[in-house]
């Protein structure tokens, strides 16, 4: 991260003397990137808004909105996104436990750390295909469970609508947990030595140390990771679902999510206006997350600027 530590010079004095010139010059530097961003995001959102009020070239008011809002499939999609959101605390917890375990391990730590991070590097289509094989009714996982006598646990992981979403979540968790472990571990390692002095003197046990000291110490990282993963569950799960359910959101509708709903409306059902409307809904939902993210980052951004 910050590889050089800034000295607390009062450079701001010099800058304050020529604010006008500075902001013009700043604009020059920022403009190219801003143009691209404005185009990609701004154009899209505005076009979407306009499209959601039209059909076949004519204004139709809120027709599209009422169609989408009353679509049971859309409700199911949103519900599934919500369920995926609920898995975030589990994800964060697993990452935390793995991080503190790694922290306490000296021998082989690098190997284990590499291993836990490898899934994050793999492409999602690859991951989805492999797990598609492993999770079949007679696939590798059930074969393994039977071989150790746990065949009562064997399920139709992909084909049973009751567990399919859970199966999907497990793949997402498998892939995303490494990121959290690395984040948290890096933060724990950078904590000053005195943090654990008291615990060392008291001879506190594993859990007590980490629950009462580590957790509060790296809380902002934990929260940051949580927010990132919440964003993922709402906005970045399309790839998983598309590949693992052959684009159907099945079995039944068990793995339908809002991104897939939008994609199918636009590209398979040939109803781009409905897709646009659903996208507007999704965008408004992520707006909430955006504000949350913005607030969290604002503190840190202000922090870096006021050093």
């Amino acid at each position, binding site marked *: 991260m910050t590889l050089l530590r800034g000295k607390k010079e009062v450079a701001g004095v010099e800058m304050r003397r020529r604010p006008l010139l500075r902001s013009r010059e700043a604009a020059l530097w920022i403009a190219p990137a801003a143009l691209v961003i404005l185009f990609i995001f701004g154009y899209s959102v505005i076009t979407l808004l306009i499209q959601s009020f039209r059909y076949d070239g004519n204004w139709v008011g809120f027709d599209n909105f009422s*169609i989408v809002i009353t679509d049971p499939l859309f409700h199911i999609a949103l519900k599934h996104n919500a369920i995926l959101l609920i898995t975030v605390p589990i994800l964060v917890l697993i990452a935390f436990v793995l991080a503190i375990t790694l922290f306490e391990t000296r021998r082989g730590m690098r190997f284990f750390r590499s291993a836990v991070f490898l899934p994050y590097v793999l492409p999602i289509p690859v991951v989805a295909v492999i797990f598609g094989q492993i999770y079949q009714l007679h696939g590798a996982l059930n074969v393994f469970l039977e071989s150790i006598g746990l065949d009562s646990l064997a399920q139709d992981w992909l084909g049973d609508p009751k567990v399919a979403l859970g199966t999907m979540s497990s793949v997402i968790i498998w892939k995303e947990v490494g990121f959290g472990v690395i984040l948290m571990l890096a933060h724990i390692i950078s904590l000053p030595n005195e943090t654990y002095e008291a615990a060392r003197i008291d001879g506190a046990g594993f859990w007590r140390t980490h629950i009462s000291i580590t957790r509060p110490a790296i809380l902002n990282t934990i929260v940051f990771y949580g927010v990132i993963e919440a964003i993922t569950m709402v906005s970045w799960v399309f790839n998983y679902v598309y590949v693992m359910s052959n*684009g159907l959101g099945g079995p039944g509708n068990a793995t339908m999510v809002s991104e897939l709903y939008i994609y199918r409306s636009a590209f398979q059902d040939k109803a781009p206006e409905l897709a646009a409307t659903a996208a507007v809904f999704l965008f408004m939902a992520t707006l909430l997350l955006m504000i949350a993210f913005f607030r969290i980052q604002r503190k840190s951004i202000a922090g870096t600027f006021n050093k």
Partner: protein
Amino acid sequence: MVRRYLSAFSAREVWEMKSKKVFVIGAFALALLLGACSSSSDKSTESTPTESAAAFPTEDLTLNISWWGEQEAPGATKWLEETIALYTKEHPNVTIKHVLQTTEGLVPAFEAAAAAQSGPDIQYFWGGIYAQQPGWDGNIVPVSDYIAEDELSHYINAKMEEGFQGKIWTAPWYVNPSFPLLVRKDILAANGLEVPTNWDQLMNVCDALSAKNITTIAGGVKDGWFGGWIYSILGAQSVQSQADVINAVVGNTKFTDPEHAGWWSKLEESKKHKCWNDDINSLELYQAQQRFVDGKAAMTITAGPDAPNFAKKAGGDEKVQIMAMPAWSDGPLAGKMGTTSQTLGITKWSKYPEVAADFLKFAHTSDRLNAWFAATGSMPADDRFDLTQVTSPSTKALFESAIQGAPYLENFIPAKLDTDAVFKNVQLVLKGTMTGPEAAADMQDQMERLRTSDRKLVDNFTAWAK
């Protein structure tokens, strides 16, 4: 003389004004109208009127073909490349390129081309609704504008599936008997069973085999397609004709009415009798069919063009019988093999529709028909195809049954209803989480919704029904 000028004019004008959509549609419609008027007065001549009207273009040109089919009729690619080579030998100024699409990618790729109003000249379409919709959307020109009626009349299923208000949208290419049930006679015999001739007998076979932990019918519904197949081979048995289905689509009748709902209960029954492999929900279709070849299942259902191949791989006519799904009802279509033809159409933006049509006709010359059978072992969609060259009795029976077969129901419902109601509910019924009547009710609900969310649906289907 005048006709030649008009056709040439329309081709050039279309090309120049490609970006002005409305104008193009108008101009093209006019040209078509004029072209159609001129061709309809010339029915007695052998060659198509538009052929004599426009001289074959002499400039260098390229045709692009976007297609599908190797997946269900292996050998199709070879045939296509051969046909292209022969055609371009006769017409050296023509270059033809082809792209084989994936099953999931076929429709999206065409939609993208349609949105851009540029892309392939010849496009593959499954029959029925899949060929009608692009016509309704204005993305293809009817082949009947370029190919004479008497020629088209030989193309199997053209009128039933691609006919619309006197036009034929796309040209049938090969027949897909839909769908044959392949039965391992040897496995049945080894278990003291006979080939079932009706539904109840089939249920008995399921009981007997499942008691011995043998899969009766191998299937896979994870990727959805199989659901549509089952709908067609079970659902067709209780309707009078495809018109019944269209009636339910537009709302004159309901999908919960007995003639439309009965098959769901039969599907449920087949699950109760343990006819299917237990992992049908986590397998994809092609994976499951492999079980039949490997001798791990007594029966399976395959794509029509692929049936002879499967039969051969599993041991030939001695071991395998190809038949229609046993009848569960006494409707006029029960026990009959379904039939559909996969088709090729000409896109609206093609600069050389007459060349495209000429190529399509070339594909129906008798040498090419025979070559298709030789390459793929499946039946070309032309009743002039000489059946005497088919030596295998099961294959011959299959082909004959497909000439006057039952309509392929999946082609007469909206595509969205197919994926959202049929695929999905078949998955759930086979899993045991939905009953037959629930499935039918859900299909009806979805249809009602679809009528409001797809605002042109009712009009298009009503016009089609006429």
